[in-house]
């Protein structure tokens, strides 16, 4: 029995047919319209389209199934965290940028690392050459972590440490812990997030050396297990739908894969003897926000519903806190153009608005110079202001989930939720997400979708203002200031490494590394051993070399 009166719905159905026949037939705009992920979009939605709708399907805010939002008061109680990504140069360069953003009202810090750090190479490694300090901050050791967060009140602000890969995440998390201990900060006060997603390590990004998916997944779970037991306010994982989406998937796949990962993680931790209610409340998610305004909002709402259902029905979570999904959103970088870059301010503002209408906990708005380089201070500020405009000037945050009840949005939310569930079932059939990645299936999905999208853009089927929709020939791109990476970073980091290595106790270092090597082959959590290695002054590259040697390397599937 739905929220609608059956008789009235029947009458409405008739009325709709009449309207369609008398007023909407043969008029302009005929044809098939769909959302980005292919869900059909009708001309007009009415209660008939959601005639089976029960209010319990969405519930109240802050109550299961949490479709309307995970807190009763949402943004009234707690404004979304305006967390702008920052990352470049040496740790002290980035430290300055943190202080700048905090001074201008940012309520959290979000750290991006350079490629050598992300993939676990010290700055003086041959593989690091030419990449140190580009696109992110360079970290080689615990000293760098100390420098990075020097003077930042890490017990008061929320710190997101964007360690994409589980293999480097264990090392950097260990360094963070050691740093906090040295500063005398109790672990219960540390509030923050790691990304730590094996999909990033083995699927989304290519690299010269990659760990096998199973090994990366193990390290992912090690970090979650350790953090659950020792860092009560820390989110040890942020399932990364964003980068998967950017690589080339639609909204359904984005969420389907992330939730499959959550299922796999939970099942593994349960195997290790934990209870789902111990760790579930600290699992978090990271979504992309693309251009299809309503589909993205529906995706946000639908993902909360599917997560709730999985946690409750499949994993048997008992605590309410285990059933609610928290997520950070980043607006879609790949939709931002190099041509006429100032247009990107409009694009990301619209995407940011959708994120808030969808109920995100924190937001990063991409800067207008996204297609050129890491953001300049100026561009970074515009992004922050965009968030603030949404937050304090539009009044959208004064009421919770304002789009609920829209015939279209509720219909779309349900449709998206159903499709996500079907996608998860498909992955189940393949033996779970790790198996689906090992076989190269997911890589193929990405490659095919990305190739198709490119075709649509080039043919003009997918319209982009200023690029293939009324492009201005001969118009010079705005001469915007483009950020240049500081060039001395590599030398500075190399120098630090030289001193660092000299200052350590070699015997102690060797012992810790040997023990780390050994634990790789046991069914035991690596974290305590990584922490010991960090305390013995092991560098990031050295720890990663152990993983590469002990777990072996895996070949990225050819697509």
């Amino acid at each position, binding site marked *: 029995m739905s929220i609608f009166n059956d008789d009235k719905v029947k009458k409405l159905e008739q009325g709709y047919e009449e309207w369609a026949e008398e007023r909407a037939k043969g008029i302009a705009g005929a044809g098939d319209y769909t959302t980005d992920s292919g869900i059909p979009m009708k001309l007009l939605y009415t209660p008939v389209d959601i005639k089976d709708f029960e209010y319990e399907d969405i519930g109240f805010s802050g109550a299961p199934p949490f479709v309307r939002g995970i807190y009763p008061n949402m943004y009234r109680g707690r404004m979304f965290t305006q967390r702008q990504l920052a990352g470049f140069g040496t740790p002290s360069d980035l430290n300055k940028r943190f202080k700048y953003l905090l001074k201008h009202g940012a309520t959290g810090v979000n750290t991006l690392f350079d490629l050598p750090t*992300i993939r676990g190479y010290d700055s003086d490694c041959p593989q690091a050459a030419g990449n140190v300090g580009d696109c992110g901050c360079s970290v080689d050791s615990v000293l760098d972590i100390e420098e990075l967060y020097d003077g930042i009140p890490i017990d008061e602000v929320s710190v997101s440490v964007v360690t994409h890969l589980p293999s480097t995440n264990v090392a950097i998390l260990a360094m963070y812990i050691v740093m906090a201990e040295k500063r005398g900060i109790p672990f219960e006060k540390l509030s923050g997030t790691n990304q730590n997603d094996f999909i990033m390590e083995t699927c989304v990004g290519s690299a010269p050396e990659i760990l096998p998916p199973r090994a990366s997944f193990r390290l992912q779970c090690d970090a979650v297990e350790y953090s659950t037991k020792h860092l009560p306010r820390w989110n040890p994982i942020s399932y990364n739908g964003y980068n998967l989406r950017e690589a080339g998937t639609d909204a359904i796949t984005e969420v389907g894969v992330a939730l499959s990962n959550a299922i796999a993680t939970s099942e593994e931790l349960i195997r290790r003897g934990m209870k789902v209610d111990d760790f579930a409340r600290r699992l978090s998610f990271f979504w992309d926000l693309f251009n299809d305004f309503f589909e993205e909002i529906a995706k946000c709402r639908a993902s909360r519903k599917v997560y709730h259902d999985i946690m409750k029905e499949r994993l048997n979570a008992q605590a309410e806190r285990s059933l609610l999904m928290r997520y950070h959103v980043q607006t879609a970088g790949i939709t931002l153009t190099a041509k006429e870059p100032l247009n990107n301010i409009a694009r990301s503002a619209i995407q940011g608005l959708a994120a808030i209408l969808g109920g995100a906990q924190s937001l990063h708005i991409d800067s207008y110079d996204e297609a050129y380089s890491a953001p300049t201070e100026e561009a970074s500020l515009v992004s922050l202001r965009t968030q603030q405009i949404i937050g304090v000037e539009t009044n959208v945050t004064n009421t919770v989930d304002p789009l609920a009840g829209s015939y279209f949005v509720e219909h779309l939310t349900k449709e998206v939720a159903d499709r996500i569930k079907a996608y998860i079932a498909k992955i189940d059939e393949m033996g779970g997400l790790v198996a689906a990645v090992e076989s190269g299936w997911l890589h193929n999905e*990405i490659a095919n979708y990305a190739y198709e999208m490119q075709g649509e853009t080039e043919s003009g089927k997918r319209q982009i203002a200023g690029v293939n929709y009324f492009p201005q020939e001969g118009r010079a791109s705005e001469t915007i200031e*483009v950020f240049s990476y500081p060039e001395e970073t590599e030398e500075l980091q190399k120098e630090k490494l030289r001193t660092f290595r000299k200052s350590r106790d070699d015997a102690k270092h060797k012992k810790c590394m040997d023990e780390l090597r050994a634990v790789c082959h046991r069914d035991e959590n690596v974290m305590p051993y990584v922490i010991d290695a960090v305390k013995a002054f092991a560098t990031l590259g050295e720890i990663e070399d152990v993983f590469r040697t002990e777990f072996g390397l895996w070949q990225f599937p050819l*697509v």
Partner: protein
Amino acid sequence: MAGADKILIAKLGLDIHWRGAMIVSRFLRDSGKEVVYLVNSFPEEIVDAALEEGVSVVGLSTLCGNHLTLGPKVVQLLKERGAGDVAVFIGGTIPPADIPRLKAAGLTEVFPPESSLSHILECVNSCSVVS
């Protein structure tokens, strides 16, 4: 079916974004080219492969800012090994201000974001086959 042009496509250094390189490779294949697809490689490996495979064009893909450091290195190594007639293209997140510097360093074509696939193919076709 003799005489299909042969091109090498590589991800430059540690850059993780493989979508663009994959799309360009597929498109070139569908246009009848033979593409040696290298995934992540460093300049020495790229040049070794270019020589062994006898390619006319080396295509570098990077979205992470190492184009000015590693791109010219590839050009230089090719020259040193006597293969200065191999054209080197580079594509990815390249700011307009860097394009003249790259060209001055010997990169024949630079493809910033939104370069069309057909334009890339045109450039490939206008490169002569090294003999």
